[in-house]
C-alpha cells in the first residue's frame, strides 16, 4: 500500500475540540479534519472552495503516531473591543482606530485556550481510488505550500520541516517506523497510534471510539461522527 508520510513537530500545538466559545480545549493529537485542513492549506484551497475541500476530507485516510506530547499549557487570553453601538456608522482602517475610545468605554473579551507542548507526530496518509490529487502532488504541496501550515492554531508554527516521503509498505505501523527522517533519539514506534476505518494498521486496536471530526459542510461548520481506532504501543527496550 502506498502512503505519504510526514512529521509534525512544534513547541506548542492546539487541536480543537467541538466546542468553540470562551473555553477552547485541545486533543493530544491532530484530528482527521485538522490534517485534511493542513493538506488543503498546502494545496492553496480557500475556505469557500467547499467542493474541493470536501473531496480532500473524503478521499484520504489518515493515521497519526504520537512520539511526544508534553504537558498542557493553558493560555489566558484577553482582547479589547469597542461596543457594537460605538463602532456603528464608523469606518475603522486600523486596530488603533478601532480602540481609539476612552479606556472605560472598551469591553474585554476573555477566553481560555489550551495547548499541548513539545509535540512530535508522524502522519501517514492513504488515498482512495477517487482521490482528487495523487499522493505525490500532496507531497509537493507540503514541500512548497500555498498557505503556511501550522499546528492547529496560527500562533503554533512547525519547528521542523515536514519532510514528506512516499512509501510503499504493508501497513501503517511499518510506514511510520521506516520513515527515514527520524529525529535524533526518537524511537521508531510511536507510543500511541490512531487510524481511520479502512486502513491496515499492523497492530491490534486497543480502543475504538466515535469522534466528531468528519466534515459535512465547511462553510456551515458542520461535522459528523467517524470511527477512530486507537492502539497504545509498548516501547522497545
Amino acid at each position, binding site marked *: 500500500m502506498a502512503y505519504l508520510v510526514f512529521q509534525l513537530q512544534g513547541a506548542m500545538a492546539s487541536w480543537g475540540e467541538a466546542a468553540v466559545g470562551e473555553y477552547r480545549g485541545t486533543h493530544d493529537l491532530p484530528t482527521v479534519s485538522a490534517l485534511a485542513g493542513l493538506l488543503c492549506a498546502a494545496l492553496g484551497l480557500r475556505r469557500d472552495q467547499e467542493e474541493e475541500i470536501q473531496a480532500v476530507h473524503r478521499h484520504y485516510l489518515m493515521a497519526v503516531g504520537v512520539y511526544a506530547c508534553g504537558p498542557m499549557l493553558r*493560555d489566558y487570553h484577553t482582547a479589547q473591543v469597542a461596543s457594537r453601538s460605538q463602532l456603528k456608522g464608523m469606518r475603522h482602517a*486600523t486596530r488603533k482606530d478601532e480602540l481609539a475610545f476612552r479606556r472605560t468605554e472598551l469591553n474585554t473579551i476573555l477566553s481560555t485556550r489550551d495547548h499541548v507542548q513539545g509535540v512530535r507526530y508522524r502522519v501517514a496518509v492513504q488515498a482512495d481510488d477517487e482521490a482528487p490529487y495523487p499522493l505525490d502532488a500532496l507531497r509537493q504541496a507540503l514541500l512548497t505550500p500555498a*498557505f503556511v501550515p501550522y499546528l492547529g492554531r496560527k500562533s503554533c508554527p512547525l519547528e521542523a520541516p515536514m519532510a514528506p516521503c512516499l512509501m510503499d509498505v504493508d501497513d501503517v505501523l511499518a510506514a511510520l517506523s521506516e520513515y527515514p527522517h527520524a529525529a535524533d533519539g526518537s524511537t521508531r514506534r510511536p507510543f500511541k497510534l490512531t487510524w481511520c476505518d479502512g486502513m491496515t494498521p499492523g497492530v491490534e486496536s486497543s480502543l475504538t471510539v466515535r469522534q466528531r471530526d468528519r466534515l459535512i459542510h465547511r462553510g456551515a461548520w458542520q461535522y459528523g461522527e467517524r470511527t477512530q481506532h486507537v492502539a497504545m504501543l509498548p516501547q522497545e527496550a
Partner: protein
Amino acid sequence: MSDFIQLHILTHYAPANLNRDDTGRPKTALMGGALRLRVSSQSLKRAWRTSDLFQAAVGEHLGTRTRLLGKDVHDAMLAQGLDAQKALEWARQIAAAFGSLEVEKPESKKKKADGEGAQEPDLKKLLQIKEIVHVSPAERQAALQLAASCVQRGKGPEAAELNLLSKDATAVDVSMFGRMLASANEFNVDAAVQVAHAFTVHRAEVEDDYFSAVDDLGTDTGAGHIGDRGYGAGLFYLYVCVNRTLLQENLQGDKALANRAMASLLEAIAKVSPTGMQNSYASRAYAAYVLAEKGAQQPRSLSQAFLRPVQGSDDRSMLTEAIESLQKQRANFDKTYGACSDASLGMDTDAGTGSLQALIDFIQD
C-alpha cells in the same frame, strides 16, 4: 506555492511583566523540560499594530481621511447629466456605505424650506459623513464607478453593490493579521502574517517582587499597603512568518503597499515592545538579533535551537550563545532536509554587523 519571509528575532527584556496570565503573573511555558517566560503572539501583535510607528508608516497609505466622499460622488453624477434630486439621493446612499450621514433625512429639511420659499438646501451638509473616514484610492474609484453605472442605467445602487465598497477597503493591518467575523464571514481575511509565542532561550522563573507603600498621611508607623507582583527578565526568541503572496493579494495586488507594510512590520518587530506594566518596569527593548530568510520552501521555526536551555558563561554572553545555536540549527536543517530557504540576511548587534535598513531592503520585492 507562495513566497515566504521568515524572521527569527532575539530580544532581551530587562525585568518586566509584559504579558500577564489570569493571576497577573508573567506567562510561562515548558520547553525541553525547562520553564521559560513567554509572551503570547496576541500581545506582541497588539503592541505592533497599535503603535504610533506602525500607524505613521502605513497610515498615509490607507488613503484619504475625509467626510466629503458623498459630495465628490454627487458632483460627478451631476456632471454626467443626472437630475439634482436623484444625484442627491444616490450620492447619499453611496456615502452611507462609508459611514452614517450628518443629516438623517433630507425630507425634513425640505419641508422646513417650503415655508420660506425655494431656499437652496445645504448640499454639503446633506452629503457629509459624520466622522472622518479612511477612503482608499481603490474605494474612491469604486464609489465613482458605481455612481457612473447608476447614471448610465438610470437606477440607484443595489444593497449588494454598497456592500462591495467596504469589502474592498481592507486595511493594511487587517491584511497582515487577518479578521474573523462570525456574523459576516464575507469580511473575513486570512492573516498573511504568522506570529509565534516568544519564549526565553534559557531557563527562567517568575520572580516575586514584594513591595510596600507608605501612606503619607497615616499617623501609624508601617506600610499603608503591601503586595507582591511577579516579574521576569530574559532573552526571548520570536518567530514570524509572512506569506508575501497572500499579503499582496489581501492588498488587492498593490505591490508597493505590500512592501511598505512589510517594512513597517519589520520595524515594529525590532523596536516596539508589549506595553504591559511599562510604568513600573520601563522595559522598552530593541531587537538584538534578526535573521531574515526568503523562499518558497515550507516555513519552519528555529525554536528547536533552544530545546536545551542556553546558559551563558563568564566569558560568553547568553546572546552570543543563542545566536550561535540559532545559526547551527539552521545549518543543520539545511544539511539534513535540503535548503529551507533561498536567501538570508542577518542583523547582529552583538557583532555589530548588518542593519535594520539592509533587512528592510532585503525583504522587499
